[in-house]
């Protein structure tokens, strides 16, 4: 019960649709703060749709998302980035835009902000790229810079949609370490994953989406499997709540 009350993100009997097509029904659960929750499922299972609903970008047909995290402290790195890579901006400037929640839209940055920005870039191993334009970054470097922005933002809820797609293994290692540190600091993290190795290394909780329904499973139960799509051959029905 104490777990339920400390949760800052709860899903209550969610029914989600894209246009007229129902994507998910009866999805329930408490997302634990300080834990990394993996969302798994085959393509089209509704992972991105659920994330959209959590971020308030998609209104549920019924049910509700209860999120007590301040809007400015929620960060979302979608699969299809809206980021304009031709925009004349450097990595450091991108990271600094994350100071919006604490700093507002008008005030200039002070030395302490720049110091914090530099510390974050050092943590992510991108200090040497500080002045490089966004358009000249590799996929992994870009992903690190975006995580840098969420660190600057002091995000309390972080949603990542397949953050390790097209990313080199060094970046994966760094990002996994940083995400674990963020979770240890109390950040609620939801991450869409496809790779079993990443799942094993990161996930504390797993919400599996299949056949329009969600089911909480223990990460250990997935360990002997090779791919998430293969562990959901059964059809899920009814309401599944709580953690495994």
């Amino acid at each position: 019960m104490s777990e339920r009350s400390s949760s800052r993100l709860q899903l209550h009997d969610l029914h989600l649709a894209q246009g007229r097509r129902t994507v998910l029904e009866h999805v329930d659960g408490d997302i634990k703060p300080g834990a990394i929750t993996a969302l798994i499922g085959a393509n089209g299972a509704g992972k991105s749709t659920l994330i959209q609903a959590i971020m308030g970008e998609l209104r549920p047909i019924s049910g509700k998302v209860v999120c007590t995290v301040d809007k400015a402290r929620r960060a979302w790195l979608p699969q299809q980035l809206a980021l304009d890579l031709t925009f004349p901006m450097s990595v450091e400037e991108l990271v600094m835009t994350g100071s919006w929640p604490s700093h507002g839209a008008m005030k200039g940055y002070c030395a302490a902000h720049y110091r914090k920005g530099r510390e974050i870039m050092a943590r992510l191993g991108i200090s040497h790229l500080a002045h490089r334009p966004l358009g000249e970054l590799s996929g992994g470097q870009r992903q690190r810079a975006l995580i840098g922005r969420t660190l600057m933002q002091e995000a309390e809820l972080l949603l990542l949609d397949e953050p390790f797609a097209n990313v080199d293994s060094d970046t994966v290692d760094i990002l996994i370490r940083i995400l674990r540190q963020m979770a240890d600091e109390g950040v609620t993290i939801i991450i869409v994953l496809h790779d079993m190795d990443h799942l094993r290394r990161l996930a504390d909780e797993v919400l599996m989406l299949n056949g329009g329904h969600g089911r909480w499973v223990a990460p250990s139960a997935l360990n002997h499997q090779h791919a998430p799509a293969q562990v959901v051959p059964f059809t899920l029905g009814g309401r599944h709540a709580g953690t495994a």
Partner: protein
Amino acid sequence: MLALLDAWFIAPFDYGFMRRAVVGGLALSLAAPPLGVFLVLRGMSLIGDAMAHAILPGVALGFLLAGFSLPVMSVGGVLFGVMVALLAGAVSKMGGQREDAAMASFFIISLAAGVMLISMGGSSVDLTHVLFGSILAINSTALLLIASISTLIVITLAIIFRALVVECLDPLFLRGQSSRSGWVHSVFLGLLVLNLTAGFQTLGTLMAVGLMMLPATAARFWSKRLEGLIGIAVVLAMLASTGGLLLSFHLDTPSGPSIILLAGVAYLLSALFGRYHSLAAKLRRKTTPLALEQSH
């Protein structure tokens, strides 16, 4: 030599109309290029053109009601520009059509309606005046209006600068940060309309957009930084407006087209010889040695 310089660059400003014209041109050159830079960065370069047409019926109605009165025509222009922007936004939301498609439809209707209105109430001279402007004919009231609008634009841009940058770069992030993020786009379109109404007296509705876009597109060949783009675009616009006026004075050419053509020359030269992405830059392409890059 000094006499020649004086005759070319100083003497023309003995005339009051030239002094007013150059001040008007410089005021516009401060406000228009930053808007153009953001339009280019947002991939909305043609929206400026569309809005320039959109204000025409309002300007024409003002002209019919009060004759050639800049304040009345400006108010009409602003009202019509904002209305067309809102309508285009509403149609695109309603039908799932992209905003630029709706805007393109409305601007051509506006152009036809504007030309029709002016022809009904005035002569072809009036039409030419509205379409192509007459910077040499601005009086003190017009100058005050242009300077006030330009000041307002620069101050507002400074206030919304960071929001505008974030909106251009990553609209999703801005939406996440503020539930009122939609206002950034609306304020920006409002500034665009204001700038075009300030510009139509000097350069005409059709060419006012030139001082906004050409310096901005030319600056892309010289800088990769936002501050650089804005600074270079403003300087180019100032040079073009002052140089164009002087050319028009000495060579007896129409002032509006002289200014815009000079900005056009700056664009072409930038495309040929600019620092980035120009023809010359492609020919002299050099790479940074890896060791140097890592030590940076």
